[in-house]
């Protein structure tokens, strides 16, 4: 049996492509559970306070899909932002969250009666033993909200249901930039906090997180917002894809390669080329 060099090259190329795909795909689709937001451990020398810091490149991003929150307010269903990228980093002392989203209009002013500013908020349960209702938590299951608005407002809020947000004494640190039609906002807080009604950030288990965004020039404010469903910050370690997923993908890849080669050989024999 002799394979023509051309066929051999084609089969080999096909096999290589398949192997490459099987190895690359898991990385591309972020091999982790659907609602997990990976938490990157930042090194001592790294800096995350600024959204432009190159150290953020090492932190993987989760893409959160946004949809109009239900509020009963006028134009509640006409929100404009469809997705937000969320990156999370812990250092020895702080939790940093970086939120990036496309917004063609940079709205930073609230100084006219008709002006509303772009804004973003992160929602965390106060007590992570049970997942609170997504719409600002509930009376007996409250949430912390890290709120940033492009007019310079930055607040940490407590809420127990829609319309109940109340500022806490503490405030998250913030930094932002707007480049190429994209907002990048970093919000951070000390990991340790003994304040009441403030989320205790765990280091041994996951923490629920949800995000909301407002496009100011679209009249978005209050409950008129694009909101994500509950996700979680993977602070508890646990299965995050590799290595066992990589093993499964490798087995699958090898199987596909073998099948391809057998098929090529089968076709060749059927044609009576042996």
């Amino acid at each position: 049996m002799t394979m023509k060099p051309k066929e051999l090259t084609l089969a080999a190329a096909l096999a290589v492509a398949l192997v490459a795909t099987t190895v690359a795909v898991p990385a591309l689709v972020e091999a982790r559970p659907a609602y997990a937001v990976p938490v990157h451990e930042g090194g001592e020398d790294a800096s995350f306070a600024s959204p432009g810091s190159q150290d953020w490149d090492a932190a993987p991003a989760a893409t959160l899909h946004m949809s109009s929150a239900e509020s009963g307010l006028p134009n509640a269903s006409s929100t404009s932002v469809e997705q937000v990228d969320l990156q999370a980093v812990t250092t020895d002392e702080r939790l940093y969250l970086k939120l990036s989203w496309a917004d063609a209009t940079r709205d930073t002013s609230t100084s006219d009666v008709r002006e509303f500013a772009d804004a973003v908020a992160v929602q965390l349960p106060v007590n992570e033993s049970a997942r609170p209702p997504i719409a600002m938590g509930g009376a007996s299951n409250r949430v912390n909200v890290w709120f940033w608005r492009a007019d310079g407002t930055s607040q940490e809020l407590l809420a127990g249901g829609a319309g109940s947000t109340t500022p806490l004494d503490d405030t998250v640190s913030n930094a932002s930039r707007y480049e190429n039609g994209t907002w990048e906002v970093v919000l951070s807080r000390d990991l340790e906090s003994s304040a009441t009604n403030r989320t205790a950030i765990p280091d041994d288990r996951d923490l629920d997180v949800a995000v909301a965004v407002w496009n100011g020039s679209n009249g978005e404010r209050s409950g008129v917002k694009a909101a994500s469903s509950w996700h979680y910050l993977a602070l508890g370690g646990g299965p995050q894809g590799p290595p066992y997923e990589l093993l499964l993908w490798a087995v699958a890849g090898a199987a596909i390669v073998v099948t391809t080669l057998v098929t090529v050989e089968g076709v060749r024999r059927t044609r009576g080329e042996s």
Partner: protein
Amino acid sequence: MSSQSDGGGSDTPEGVDLAEGIDHQVAMVMDLNKCIGCQTCTIACKTNWTEGGGRDYMYWNNVETRPGSGYPKDWEEMGGGWKSEEHAERQPGQLPEKEEYGRAWEFNHEQIFYEGSDEPLRPMDGAEWGPNWDEDQGAGEYPNSYYFYLPRICNHCTHPSCVEACPRSALYKREEDGIVLVDQDRCRGYRYCVEGCPYKKVYYNSVTKNSEKCIFCYPRIEGEGPEGEVRAPSCAEDCPPQLRLVGFLDDEDGPIYKLVNEYEVAVRLHPEYRTEPNVYYIPPFAPPQHSERGESLDSERIPRNYLEELFGPEVNEALNTIERERAKVERGEESEVMDLLTTENPAKQYRLEVFDEE
């Protein structure tokens, strides 16, 4: 839906609908026949409550010329209020533009007083619209042109759509007297109240990032007026022709109840917005139309349909009643309506301590 309150319910006079949970309802009657458009009420309010701090453009009390565009410009076309008498669904509203309110202009005081300029005193730039910009313009053709002044404050409505519009319940009606207030701690500056008020009497403060409005001078009503006394709102007390009566709608012996419920000569502005205002107006009379030769004609100068547009069909019966009562006085007979409208006794104009003992 209207319902009588628990607190004052059993004593609430017939025909008075108090908002749910409200003990009493403060109210005001403004006699438009007395308004000379001097804006003293406007300035009294401004010096008390809206000087600076993001409030420059706000006139919690304003006086606008009618017919005219009003303040903010064309506010009647901006929506708000309720779709039906059930008060279940609100009419969508819109936010006025800054230019529709008018900016707080800078004047050339410096040049005139200190630099010897002989220019007239005037705004330095950008004066293209402002409150009562169309002063005295009115409508109609000589010799039958007409106008009148319409002072406006927050109506402290029985069914306030601003309160319903707020997703945070930052606006509320005070239990003791039905005054509509914005809780400045609850407010987050969303401005749904500004959209929701069909009279455009809630204002956004871009410095505090909160909404603000007429408070019916509640500290004065509570006894913190000049010399620590109970006083009516300063727009009323400072009015040179004393055109305002202040009291409680549910005070059967007070001037408000008598003019509104008993004689039905005081009517609401734009009742079709269905918020049920608690500021009422005695509709304006004008001299009859004149012929080219200056003879009086048997024809009303202010078109009746214009008054109906403003005050609803109730204005007709109100005008008829006032005309009958005036005729009584002309014949030398007694008229309680005319007594109420012409009293110069402050104790009769302002009855604010009637429920104090409760």
